[in-house]
């Protein structure tokens, strides 16, 4: 059965003198090589240049801070239980007096680890989060030499206070509408002075 017309029967006839000199073949090869100098390169000069990426690309995670710079995560464990790869490990702790500017609510994650080798970047943690704390971003996970370095702790996951990461494009209309409901404690900023004592 013949599938294509590209079949060539190998001939074992002796090379002629001109062919044994290889000069025409060398010239032909050089011409192909030289022609590539004038063609557009199919690769790009990463990481100096990057390709355009979707704003909703599911890449490296970020743990968001709120408007005051306090961490939003309350260590509720919804992301860890939703994670199909079991890549997330959380240890919770209680906020002490005087730490209100660091943590938004009375409980926070003292350790939040994502194993980037286990993570499949499905985005279920982002869906599960009730506090808008974890988001996937359009950044990539860096290459490392050691496997341990792929276990990202809070120092790599929490956004830097002076270098915020914009995630507004990832938020769906339903979430934005929910945030407009007044009176929901979820939507109002925590203010310890406002605590009413009956």
């Amino acid at each position: 059965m013949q599938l294509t017309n590209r079949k060539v029967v190998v001939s074992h006839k002796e090379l002629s003198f001109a062919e044994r000199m290889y000069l025409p073949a060398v010239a032909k090869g050089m011409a192909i090589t030289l022609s590539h100098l004038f063609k557009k390169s199919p690769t790009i000069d990463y990481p100096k240049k990057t390709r355009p990426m979707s704003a909703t690309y599911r890449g490296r995670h970020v743990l968001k801070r709120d408007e005051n710079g306090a961490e939003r995560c309350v260590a509720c464990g919804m992301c860890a239980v939703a994670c199909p790869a079991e890549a997330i490990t959380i240890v919770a702790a209680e906020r002490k007096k005087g730490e209100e500017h660091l943590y938004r609510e009375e409980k926070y994650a003292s350790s939040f680890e994502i194993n980037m080798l286990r993570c499949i970047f499905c985005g279920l943690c982002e869906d599960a989060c009730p506090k808008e704390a974890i988001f996937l971003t359009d950044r990539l996970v860096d290459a490392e030499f050691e496997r341990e370095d792929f276990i990202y702790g809070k120092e790599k996951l929490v956004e830097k206070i002076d270098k915020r990461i914009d995630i507004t494009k990832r938020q769906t209309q339903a979430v934005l509408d929910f945030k407009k409901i007044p009176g929901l404690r979820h939507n109002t900023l925590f203010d310890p002075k406002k605590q009413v004592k009956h």
Partner: protein
Amino acid sequence: MKVTIDGITIDVPKGTTILQAARMIGPEVAPPTMCYYSSLKTSGGYCRTCIVKVTQGSAANPNPMPKPVASCRTEVMDGMVVENVTNNDVLEARKGVVEFLLINHPLDCPVCDQAGECHLQDLGYEHGLATTRYEFPRREFDKIDIGKYIKLHMTRCILCYRCVKVADQLTDKRVHGVIHRGDAAEISTYIENVIENDFSGNVIDVCPVGALTDKTFRFKTRVWFTKPVEASRECKKCTGRVRLWYKGDEILRVTGRKDQWGEVEDFICNECRFEKKKTSDWKIEGPTNVNRHSVISQNHYNNLNELKLQVLKQQKALGFIQIDKRP
């Protein structure tokens, strides 16, 4: 006495309440409860979650009762006909009750330790709305330490009075009750008095929400990351029959054994609950049978096997099981 609940007739002794009769039939017709607790006398009648419609008062007087009644406080009459889940009015009324219970309840399930085994959470999920119509600030309280083991967070309290009944009926000196009235009512100890009784820890178990919590377990982990195991020990004060909640090899929490209605079988003492947190203290009887729909069965592989068996059984019943032809 014959009573018909949702079309199912059952014979019950005199003095049985509608709720108890419904529980005898099974969980499909039993109304949900937030304040009623079968082992605590005079409990019930506060939350109105268990309301049902009585369409026929008795065989002698077949007139319907004019309003929905609290099934935990209404005794059955011979020939009574009750509608619970089959009556749309009851479900609508219960939805209203749930909305009222949630009016001052904070939306802090992600923080609360009770989440995952919270009766109010289940109730809100089954009957309530996904959104709220309440636009005013909810009442908030400071957290109070009641002794070295128990923390009271009144913000979450729904005033079911169960803990008050425990303090009243299980402990010898009652120092804990409800002060003020109506909207201002709150659970309190007498001028921040400390509850120091061997059975005071049971207020944690009876609390349907996360208002009274175990300080030794507080914020340690979410309940669905722990694995429940039935265990017992020789105890002079109580029966010693408990449930241990493991995370890895570590016992994070000890509670009483809860039955299918979420009520503890035996009240346990504080020594068993708070001080015995080593495996060597206990005689392990076996894993707790967790409902596979419960979040507590998440990530536990023994339940996965159970699930597989059930799927297999269903497939067999439907007749499309594949016969393994390999030798």
